[in-house]
């Protein structure tokens, strides 16, 4: 038998292309300690046992990490196999008989614990893990009573820093490899690894390179002993003194689930909670340590009013009366459109609804925008078909048309990376510069800012099955062969220095591809909830266009704005030219955060009357006429909505110092001063009103939110199958180093949900109408106005960029970094030190054309200003463009100074300095 001259190695299938023969998941029967259980073939024994109530002790195994079999704690006996098997790496097969409790197993478990303890210091009384330490707990449960070791234990210098945030105590380390595997497998940043060998094995970072990752402190939570500790929590509390509440992080719009912990009315820790649809238990460091800002000394905790040019403390009635009077005065003398509300993305859904109702129903203005010129048109966000985060996992392809996810929506990056890398979903990168996902991309097609529409259309044609006319897309066409499922477009504002029209043009083209949905990569904490609930021009709460919902909301609120209003740019311009007389800053800092600082300054300098609802004094609101202190995350209950439209509860863990109020209550009080009584006593009352009035939120009331384990994706009618109901939300009692295992995720029956709602109604007094579905309720309440339809995007926007570009110009691409100049970072001591100075980066070719070297100073000139900056070459930047981070208040230059928000793109003239 002769084989033809062989295939060259370069054409061999990729080593990663090898997969075990795919078999349909079949059910097998396994006997665990004499009990027969059903399991999916190939599932890991340790998981099957745990799902059926048999806890096998373990240290290195973690639900979300690859099995490594290092600790050997999970050894069990399997009949027919010699010796002991590690249950974390043993797949179940039909008829397998497993013993986890035999004397031999107990003896080995005791032995392994004895080994783990021989070099582990018994400093539990001063160890931060003491009291919630798996090694401590399992030694108690499975270990020997006393030590037989009389030799000296190994000693290291303790502790040593792995980074600014993490300390490593090598003496306590039991070499489970959870941290190193997280860094490698989950974050894709293998910056820590094992060094040395044998009993000297230690976790090391590279010399002179600390473990600086946006996700670094997940390893602290993963560590099964006290070897890794986070600086902010070191020696702060004992675990048994902590109270905890499950909540959502609102640092970005992914809204990871977490367990917020406090002691003595002081927040001390946020731990990730494993939520399958959202965050898999991970948090970014910014979200993890944001709680520090809540306790910042810079918090404003008392209302203030401007008297004789100075902000002075006053009582709430004084402040509210002054604010109401100022707003009413503007409305009455200059018309409703002279009032504007900027912001609202920081709060809860209830805050957003209350302020939407105040602005649109009471003050009658549509000049309301929760986005500060850094998002997308609300028409696109609310109107394009939505995808869920989990859709990434099963997508036919992912189109990335978004800013650097690792900086803006960090945990979404982990999901997208997992989809592209581990699950091998083709990813096409259309972002304007190289970003965190580029290395996982199947195809990369960049364009000049403003020109995304063409490449988006080209991708749409390939997704539609046409042969690619662009060579860069050939790998995508190849990878699509044989794949099914939806196309998920991760859509965001790729560049704060252009108008976003190009991205929207691409989105329009992609929306034409069958089975395409969009995941909105917009960053601000609850921006999706704010837009959904009407804090956007041209919209009313519940994803209803202004005109479509006019009759419905007039009936419920008494009034709605007569005509559509302005977005953030328009509001700032109107404030500058005097059209807007009264401006409400709802947790907004346009001077710091709007991508056109000059415009923001001009607006605030001119606005006659400014009301600030905020927790901190900022560059924008320090000249407010009335300052109303707001409660922050951790201090208030409510619900929030993430990028996929998932509504989940946030919970108060502490009560605020001073007299701040939640934003919704500020709105309700102002409404009262303006003559409207809203009968709300708690955030849940607002939730119930939202459920009753907002079409997209139909049925999503307080009671459902209390019971839905993973929240509810809006609208409920489309996502009813994914709702998992629990009997009652219980506080977390075991600290989630261990993935939480709620009851197995069974999609609830639609009938069960309806029945439950009805049953729930009997528990407490409710309107009769609430027992039936919203459609029924609406017809019962309002025979006149039918429920308005949810907004669907129909027509494309027709803006095309024009520019005065010359040979010296580089088109600016600006995006955010995780640690920026925002108040959340500067008010959190642990985060403030992580800000990195921005760098002007351009393609090495452009740098060489200028005749400068890396680090040389150049002069950059935009239509706004001229500044000096140091330039660095980076071949991830497209030739003809340059990048500069936005809102990083380090000395040097901030892109916000260079951008003109009315210009379609920002071209910079870059010149050498002589």
């Amino acid at each position, binding site marked *: 038998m002769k*084989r033809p001259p*062989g295939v060259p190695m370069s054409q061999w299938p990729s080593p990663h292309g090898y997969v075990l023969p795919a078999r349909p998941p079949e059910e097998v029967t396994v006997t665990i300690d004499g009990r027969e259980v059903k399991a999916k073939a190939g599932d890991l024994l340790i998981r099957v046992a745990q799902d059926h109530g048999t806890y096998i002790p373990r240290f290195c195994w973690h639900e979300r990490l690859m099995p490594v*079999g290092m600790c050997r704690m999970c050894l069990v006996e399997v009949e027919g196999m010699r010796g*002991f098997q590690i249950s974390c790496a043993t797949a179940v097969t039909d008829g397998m008989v497993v013993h986890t409790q035999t004397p031999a197993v107990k*003896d080995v478990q005791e032995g392994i614990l004895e080994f783990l303890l*021989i070099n582990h210091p018994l400093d539990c009384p001063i160890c931060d893990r003491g009291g919630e330490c798996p090694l401590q707990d399992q030694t108690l449960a499975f270990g020997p009573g006393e030590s037989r070791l009389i*030799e000296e234990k190994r000693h290291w210098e303790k502790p040593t820093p792995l980074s600014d945030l993490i300390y490593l105590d090598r003496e306590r380390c039991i070499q489970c490899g959870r941290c190193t595997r997280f860094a490698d497998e989950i974050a894709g940043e293998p910056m820590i690894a094992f060094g040395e060998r044998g*009993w000297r*094995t230690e976790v090391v970072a590279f010399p002179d390179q600390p473990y600086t990752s946006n996700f670094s402190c997940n390893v602290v939570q993963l560590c099964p002993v006290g070897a890794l500790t986070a600086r902010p929590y070191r020696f702060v509390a004992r675990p048994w003194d902590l109270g905890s509440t499950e909540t959502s992080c609102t640092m970005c719009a992914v809204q990871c689930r977490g367990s917020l912990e406090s002691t003595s009315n002081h927040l001390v820790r946020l731990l990730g909670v494993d939520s399958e649809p959202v965050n898999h238990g991970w948090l970014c460091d910014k979200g993890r340590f944001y709680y520090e800002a809540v306790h910042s000394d810079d918090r404003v905790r008392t209302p203030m009013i401007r008297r004789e040019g100075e902000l002075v403390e006053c009582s709430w009635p004084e402040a509210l009366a002054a604010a109401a009077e100022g707003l009413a005065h503007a409305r009455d003398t200059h018309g409703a459109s002279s009032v504007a509300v900027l912001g609202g993305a920081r709060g809860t859904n209830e805050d957003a609804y209350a302020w939407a109702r105040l602005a649109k129903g009471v003050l009658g203005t549509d000049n309301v925008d929760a986005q500060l010129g850094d998002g997308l048109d609300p028409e696109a966000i609310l109107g394009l078909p939505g995808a869920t985060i989990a859709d990434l996992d099963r997508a036919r392809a992912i189109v990335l048309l978004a800013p650097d996810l690792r900086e803006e929506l960090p945990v979404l990056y982990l999901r997208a990376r997992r989809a592209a890398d581990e699950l091998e979903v083709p990813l096409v990168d259309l972002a304007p510069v190289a970003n965190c996902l580029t290395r996982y991309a199947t195809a990369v097609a960049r364009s000049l800012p403003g020109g995304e529409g063409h490449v988006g259309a080209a991708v749409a044609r390939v997704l539609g099955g046409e042969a690619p006319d662009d060579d860069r897309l050939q790998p995508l066409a190849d990878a699509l062969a044989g794949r099914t499922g939806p196309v998920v477009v991760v859509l965001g504002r790729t560049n704060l220095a252009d108008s976003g029209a190009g991205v929207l043009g691409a989105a329009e083209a992609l929306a034409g591809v069958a089975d395409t949905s969009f995941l909105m990569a917009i960053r601000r904490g609850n921006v999706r909830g704010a837009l959904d609930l009407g804090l956007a021009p041209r919209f009313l709460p519940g994803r209803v266009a202004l005109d479509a919902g006019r009759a419905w909301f007039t009936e419920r609120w008494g009034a709605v704005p007569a005509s559509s209003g302005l977005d953030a740019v328009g509001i700032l311009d109107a404030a500058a030219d005097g059209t807007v007389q009264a401006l409400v800053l709802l947790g907004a800092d346009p001077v710091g955060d709007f991508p056109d600082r000059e415009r923001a300054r001009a607006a605030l300098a001119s606005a006659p009357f400014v009301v600030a609802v905020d927790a901190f004094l900022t560059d924008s609101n320090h000249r407010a006429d009335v300052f109303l202190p707001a409660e922050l995350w951790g201090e208030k209950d409510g619900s929030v909505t993430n990028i996929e439209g998932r509504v989940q509860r946030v919970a108060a863990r502490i009560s605020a110092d001073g007299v701040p109020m939640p934003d919704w209550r500020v709105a309700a009080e102002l409404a009262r001063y303006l003559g409207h009584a809203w009968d709300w006593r708690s955030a849940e009352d607002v939730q119930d009103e939202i459920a009753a009035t907002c079409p997209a939120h139909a049925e999503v009331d307080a009671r459902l939110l209390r019971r839905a384990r993973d929240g509810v994706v809006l609208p409920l009618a489309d996502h009813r199958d994914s709702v998992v109901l629990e009997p009652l939300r219980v506080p977390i009692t075991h600290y989630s180093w261990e993935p939480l295992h709620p009851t197995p995720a069974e999609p609830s029956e639609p009938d069960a949900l309806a029945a439950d709602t009805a049953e729930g109604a009997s528990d407490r007094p409710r309107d009769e109408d609430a027992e039936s579905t919203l459609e029924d309720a609406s017809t019962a309440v309002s025979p006149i106005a039918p429920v308005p339809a949810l907004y669907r995007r129909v027509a494309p926007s027709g803006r095309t960029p024009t520019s005065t570009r010359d040979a010296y110009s580089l088109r600016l691409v600006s995006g955010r970094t995780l640690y920026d100049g925002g108040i959340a970072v500067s008010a959190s001591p642990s985060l403030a030190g992580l800000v990195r100075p921005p760098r002007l980066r351009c393609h090495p070719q452009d740098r060489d054309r200028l005749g400068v070297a890396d680090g040389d100073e150049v002069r950059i000139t935009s239509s706004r200003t001229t500044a000096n900056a140091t330039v660095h070459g980076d071949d991830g930047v497209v030739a003809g463009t340059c990048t500069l981070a936005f809102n990083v208040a380090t000395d040097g230059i901030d892109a916000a100074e260079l951008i003109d928000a009315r210009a379609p793109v920002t071209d910079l003239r870059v010149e050498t300095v002589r």
Partner: protein
Amino acid sequence: MPVEETRIVTRRLREHPEDSWTIECYLATGGYEMLRRALEMAPAQVQDEQVKASGLRGRGGAGFGTGQKWSFLPPGVYPRYLAVNGDEGEPSTFKDHMLIERDPHQIIEGAIIAAYAIEAHHAFVYVRGEFALGAERLEQAVTDAYASGFIGRDILGSGFDLDVVVHRGAGAYIAGDETGLLSSLEGERAMPRIKPPFPAVQGLYAQPTVVNNVETVSTIPHILRMGGEEYAKLGVNRSTGTRIFSVSGHVERPGNYEIELGLTFRDLIEGLAGGVRGGKKLKFLIPGGASSPWLMPQHLDEPLDMDHVTKELRSMLGSGAVMVYDEDTNPVLVAWRLAKFFARESCGKCTPCREGSFWIERILYRIVNGRGRPQDLDLLLSFGNHIVPGLNAPFAQTTICALGPSTMSPVVSLDRWFRDEVLAQCAPAAAGIPVAGA
């Protein structure tokens, strides 16, 4: 009765000590002829009619049937890889060292035939980092073989392609473990992997991979020359053919001796190595590298038969390194020195090995230094039982690879043969050390 070596694998390097490693010498002594013969057969023929029929078993230590190992490759999954294990790190083993330095072409020819038989187009020879001269000669040999058309595209007009890569290790004992070697080849830390999946199913770069020892591979051309069935007539029972034994320690003539399996330890030690040095008496011997439990003078007439040594003598022939100790030896000192090696070389992956080897070393060190306690030997056995439940070969181990159990071999041997001597060295009241649980 004079004992003779049966030189098959070592014949060329013994007969041509001045240039056995050159391609000229290799070709002049019939080199690469067997490659031609193999390429005329179908791969399955080489595998079944030759290698499997020869009964050849791995020479690295575990003694697994080579043909059987090859047959575990899942059909139809390509590419496949061949890795030749030349990371000879077992203390006192030095046979592969000699073969790599002095007959590299024999390894290459064997590797080409093996790769052909398993239909691999890429073979790696993993050479221990310390073998500087060996690596140099092997690399030269690979270069020469490429130049002569024995490796590369369309080898000898057969249509078979093969690339051979020489990879030098970085000095870890554990890289000699089958899966540790694969991890090391991939550029990772040399840490053993969980099995299953076995390398034959998912090995190098997650592809089906065969890992064979240098001596095993070197034997393959000779199997083809003699014919598989003819080769199987050498040896005894299931231990067919010849093996190279590295005899060291207190003997008159230490060195490598290739003998037919089935001869006795006495033949090897007294017949070939000249007996115990200086006319002294044998105290004990280690039959198969540092990992194997020790044997005593009464075992000298036992045959060198892998299964016999494993089953009847509760030890193993392992890598074929026989260490001989005379009557003046302190067995505790030997055990401590070996334990120190294992504690140093444990990769740190599994808890029992990483921590257990540390503890064993510390306790033996204490005994050696006169601070042993009477209960220390039982303590060693007691927690050793958690590394090797049952304290017996074949190992039912709690670790991933065999390094952990290996650390217990010296301790088990102390208990088995020198319990009184150890206890005598443990002074009950020595040095006033605290005695926990006494």
